[in-house]
């Protein structure tokens, strides 16, 4: 097994990437996706596995320099922990072999011989130029799944200039066991990066997309906005407070002596490898005009209900409409279910006209474990949602 070293991806993949499998990080042009391969390489090197790097686009020194500049870690070329076949090797092969099939055989033999000679465990390949020189099928053919009895794990980085059709081909023709495509949303104001787990051969995993940011050369998965909404006094602020590692709440005392949220609750948490920002909306109808703005660009909505107040279901329905919740992943959470209550799931589903796939959880927002269970479910839904 190898790991990518990227928290979140490793969690999703369970115990890691099995030996003998072939992985591709398919990068959209312009997206800072090189760290996916670099992080995986660094993790493999830390585990003292032997690697072969095929880097036809750069010299060995340039490759090592860029890697160590980004990750503050040296590639152990001198002590045999890593072997690099670089641009000079490509030039040699291309000048020596004029026919494509001969070039393919030259690469194939070279890679296999190197793997044997140095007892390589993991092969890292920068694929673009091999693909360009040899064509897709021949280029894949030079990457061995086994050498002798040994299973070789292969990690490929590829600049995808052909778009979704190439990804579909990778998957439909079983060219790779794990396909992760890396994208950026390049709007007027840059940039929103995300990756999509397109296909996993060894596990039944749905296609899922996840945003990420890069902080100090680390890939950090993040969910920029989850909205917590619900009728007044349903327990939204308590939910946000117990979900968050840190946060703020803008509350004021009302005329009855209760505290009510007048702007929003804001919380940040790091959970299951994700950086998450959660926004709690005010529940009072007088704040309804700000709700569409708060919900804008949200990735999911958690609706909080008070289990003891069936009379607030209509208001909850209004809030769902205002939040355009039908377009986003939604989780319904029935708070205060530890108190005597009459609402049940059927009543809630009917009252809110919920889709069958929307989960309804009965919890107490006072319990962190309950709150985190709901957040976990929200993350799962967000990562499965086709944004």
């Amino acid at each position, binding site marked *: 097994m190898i790991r990518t070293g990227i928290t979140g991806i490793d969690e999703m993949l369970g115990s890691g990437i099995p030996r003998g499998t072939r992985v591709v990080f398919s990068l959209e042009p312009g997206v800072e996706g*090189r760290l996916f391969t670099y992080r995986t390489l660094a993790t493999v090197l830390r585990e003292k596995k032997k690697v072969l790097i095929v880097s036809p*686009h750069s010299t060995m020194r*340039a490759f090592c320099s*860029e890697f160590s500049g980004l990750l503050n870690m040296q590639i152990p070329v001198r002590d045999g922990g890593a072997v690099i076949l670089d641009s000079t090797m490509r030039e040699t092969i291309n000048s020596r072999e004029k026919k494509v099939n001969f070039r393919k055989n030259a690469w194939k033999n070279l890679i296999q011989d190197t793997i044997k000679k140095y007892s390589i465990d993991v092969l890292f390949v920068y694929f673009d130029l091999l693909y360009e020189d040899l064509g897709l099928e021949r280029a894949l053919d030079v990457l061995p799944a086994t050498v002798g009895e040994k299973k070789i794990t292969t990690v490929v*980085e590829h*600049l995808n*200039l052909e778009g979704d059709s190439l990804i579909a081909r990778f998957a439909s023709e079983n060219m790779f066991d794990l396909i992760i495509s890396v994208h950026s949303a*390049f709007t*007027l*104001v840059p940039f929103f990066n995300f990756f999509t787990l397109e296909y996993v051969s060894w596990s039944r995993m749905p296609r899922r997309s996840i945003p990420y940011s890069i902080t100090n050369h680390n890939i950090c998965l993040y969910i920029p906005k989850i909205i917590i909404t619900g009728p007044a006094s349903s327990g939204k602020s308590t939910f946000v407070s117990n979900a968050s590692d840190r946060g703020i709440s803008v509350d004021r005392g009302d005329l009855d002596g209760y505290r009510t949220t007048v702007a929003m609750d804001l919380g940040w948490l790091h959970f299951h490898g994700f950086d998450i920002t959660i926004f709690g909306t005010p529940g009072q109808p007088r704040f309804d005009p700000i709700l569409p703005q708060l919900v804008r660009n949200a990735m999911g909505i958690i609706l909080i209900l008070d289990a003891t107040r069936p009379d607030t279901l209509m208001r909850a329905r209004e809030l769902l409409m205002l939040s355009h919740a039908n377009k986003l992943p939604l989780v319904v959470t029935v708070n205060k279910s530890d108190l005597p209550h009459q609402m049940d799931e059927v009543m809630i589903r009917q009252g809110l006209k919920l889709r069958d796939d929307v989960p309804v959880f009965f919890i107490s927002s006072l319990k962190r474990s309950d709150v985190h269970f709901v957040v976990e479910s929200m993350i799962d839904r967000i990562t499965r949602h086709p944004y």
Partner: protein
Amino acid sequence: MYTYATGISLVDDAKGGIPPGSNILILAPSMSSGEQLGYALSRPRQGEYALILTTVKRSVDLLDYFASEQFDRKFIGIIDSVTRLSTPDINDNTQIKFVSSPSDLTGIGIKFSSMIESIFNGEFASADDALFPPPIRFYIDSLTTLLMYRKLEVLYQFLHVITAKLKKMEAIGIYILNNESFDEKTLSLMKQLMNVVIEVKTEQHGDFLRIRGVIGLSQEWVPFRIHQGNLELMA
């Protein structure tokens, strides 16, 4: 709508400049002043930024050139695909980023995005009359080199993505290609991505240019020279 002054009086007087999202291809033979013409077109005007991808000169030499031609270097970013071939350990800074070679389109794309992000985030010097979105002139010097490293179809696909991004950012692209080195198919494919083509020829009495793609503009050859980084039409 913002328009980019070209310094070519024929264009600027008639049209006020070039609209955002435009792509200008300079077709110039070797030993002509086509490359300098490209730099004159990409020179950032007040409130603008320039981003240069160099596959020919080292960034240090480019900086010298900009200094000698009195370009304001504070507003210029460089993606250098030359220096790392000889000096692998050189490190990026805000205004100069290095890629391992002109064949490394992944690296070029990443550094391009990173530079744009820096400009949008205000990490470059900010002009007193800063505009939003910041007007950016992106110059590839040159497509000739990129075509030596990568196949025509691959480069076309890559440029297709880049030009789409420039359009979204309301920037302009400037590209130079040696028209003596490539066949008609190559030139024709590259022209498909462009709005304006400036042809350059060298004769005994100097260099001439001809502009195609600007409606209503004469397509006659016009003598020109580059003086202190600026284009001067001689007619």
